[in-house]
């Protein structure tokens, strides 16, 4: 296929676009208005933008040809799987093209010795979990529905179980195969030379050109992701903490021990959402404010016992210092009390209280930042949420051995209530401004968050990103309005 691009910023007329795409993709391309309407928005408050069409890709050749056609036709292109990134990142450019990668959903290889899986974009968390289990391997899981994409989660550098010992998901990637914005196919990591996708080391790290770039540098068609040995024993314990500050302080301490697979805090509204109370009133002051959870795994009962003892000792010290906390409670007790809590016990799970409610809206401000400010950030954010009339749902966890922490504020809302959406947008900005002030940075940053981020950014770094994008994507085809150019 020849590539004769229109000048940047110019698009072919609709008839030409339809004809060219139909000629190449036949039934794989759709211009159905109802379908395009559905692709225009996601669950968040980010504005809807209607695409001109959708290509359902089934192969790498389909992706290559789509990218080349977009260059020829001057069409912005947005890759998509389930669009549940909660950052509005799969909302297409107005009048652009969506490439749906969900049909490319094969687990291509599992290497038990090097402990990685080579997957396509449509492979889901549940699918990979089931594929790894016979090999005695596991992967961490985000608090996302089981059908969401592993590849998208990794490229967006998300968080989940096992990000405490192994870092954010972007660090789990051993290499990718990607179609560059101009249509060339590249392979990164060890597999650029070796038949094995064992590591990103020791070549120049071009994999990072695709991590956190929000699809602006290429469409990734394969990804090698690390897995880890499945431990024989596993339990999740919850500690009810009367004050969020005490819970977060204990979370930081436990995160640094190197003993636990995951440690995190969820504030009290999570229980209301799981129990289908979508508009909870104020918290009973006698009620725990934060639920701290600790994942413990071991290969022997002695190891498990030692880790439990260490947890008890940390808890005892916190109590002696005045913290009001219950003793660790096995999640099985919560599940036995109410099956609604099963979703906290076995991931991946669909937190239906967040996704399936009458208003239909879900959004958050998620950030990574210095542990020194997690307590202040958590408290100030919860207060802001209450001031704007939203239940103060905070999620926090230490990452990569406690080197940094996540602070995330989650809101559910009524997408059809314009006043509430406006109130929410104001809250989101205030939350982010507060977090930026404390040195926290948004992950999966939507456009409005980038606006807040840019004025604070080092000019050299800002120019470097723009230069790399201009080099890789001279026609401005891929996700043109993400990040900045």
């Amino acid at each position, binding site marked *: 296929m020849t590539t004769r691009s229109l000048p940047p910023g110019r698009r072919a007329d609709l008839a030409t676009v339809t004809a060219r795409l139909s000629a190449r993709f036949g039934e794989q391309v759709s211009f159905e208005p109802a379908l395009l309407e559905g692709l225009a928005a996601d669950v968040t408050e980010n504005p809807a933008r209607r695409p001109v069409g959708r290509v359902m890709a089934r192969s790498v050749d389909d992706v290559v040809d789509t990218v080349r056609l977009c260059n020829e036709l001057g069409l912005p292109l947005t890759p998509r799987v389930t669009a549940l990134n909660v950052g509005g990142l799969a909302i297409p450019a107005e009048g652009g093209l969506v490439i749906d990668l969900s049909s490319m959903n094969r687990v291509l290889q599992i290497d038990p010795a090097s402990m990685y899986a080579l997957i396509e974009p449509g492979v889901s968390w549940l699918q990979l979990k089931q594929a790894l289990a016979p090999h005695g391997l596991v992967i961490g899981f985000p608090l996302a529905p089981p059908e969401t994409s592993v590849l998208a989660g990794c490229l967006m550098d998300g968080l989940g179980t096992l990000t405490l010992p192994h870092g954010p998901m972007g660090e789990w990637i051993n290499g990718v195969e990607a179609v560059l914005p101009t249509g060339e196919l590249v392979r990164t990591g060890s597999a650029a030379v070796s038949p094995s996708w064992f590591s990103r080391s020791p070549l120049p790290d071009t994999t990072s050109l695709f991590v956190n770039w929000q699809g602006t540098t290429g469409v990734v068609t394969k990804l090698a992701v690390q897995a880890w040995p499945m431990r024989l024993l596993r339990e999740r314990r919850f500690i009810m903490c009367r004050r969020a500050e005490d819970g977060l302080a204990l979370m930081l301490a436990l995160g640094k021990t190197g003993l636990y697979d995951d440690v995190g805090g969820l504030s009290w509204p999570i229980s209301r959402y799981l129990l289908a109370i979508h508009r909870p*009133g104020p*918290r009973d002051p006698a009620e725990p404010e934060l639920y701290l959870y600790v994942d413990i795994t071991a290969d022997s009962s002695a190891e498990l016992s030692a880790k439990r003892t260490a947890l008890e000792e940390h808890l005892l010290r916190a109590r002696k210092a005045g913290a009001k906390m219950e*003793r660790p409670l096995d999640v099985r007790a919560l599940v036995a009390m109410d099956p609604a809590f099963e979703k906290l016990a076995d991931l991946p799970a669909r937190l239906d209280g967040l996704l399936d409610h009458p208003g239909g809206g879900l959004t958050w401000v998620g950030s990574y930042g210095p542990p020194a400010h997690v307590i202040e950030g958590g408290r100030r954010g919860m207060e802001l949420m209450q001031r704007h009339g939203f239940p103060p749902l905070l999620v926090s966890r230490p990452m990569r051995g406690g080197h940094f922490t996540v602070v995330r504020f989650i809101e559910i809302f009524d997408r059809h209530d314009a006043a509430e959406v406006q109130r929410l947008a104001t809250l989101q900005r205030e939350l982010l401004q507060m977090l930026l002030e404390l040195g926290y940075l948004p992950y999966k940053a939507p456009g409005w968050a980038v606006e807040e981020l840019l004025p604070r950014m080092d000019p050299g770094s800002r120019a470097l990103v723009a230069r790399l994008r201009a080099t890789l994507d001279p026609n401005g085809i891929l996700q043109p309005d993400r990040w900045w150019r």
Partner: protein
Amino acid sequence: MLRQNRAAGIRYQGVSMLLHDPENANLLALLLARRLERALGPAGEPGVARFPEGELTIVAGEMVARLRLGARPHLVSGEAGAGAGTAGESPPGVPGDWRRARIEGPLDVLLGAVVGELPIGAVLSGELKVSGSMRLCWVALRLLRGTGPTR
């Protein structure tokens, strides 16, 4: 003001349950209401219809919830302002009053009872304090475990 609990399946053999003001109920009241709700469901406990009549106060940590059993419908309540201090003043377990009872203990012990044995040891050691009608206390502990009321 009582409001019909929104969840389905709370009526069984003509018996139903009301959760007072779900939006403002505390976690303990919500958990107890859901437990009762399930006991009243089709796969629940037939004996729920024969709960003894009485008022039960459960204090977990500093959270307080109240159950009025045997009423038509059963009532569950628990919201801000009903802290431990006030709980001691209103319906306490009064010796000899077979219509009132109170169970008090750490949340983890109460919830731990759900998956473990009936917490007789915790009662004997004083970790769980029970007072008032022992029959009502027994019903409550069995309700927590999902094994139904006394027959």
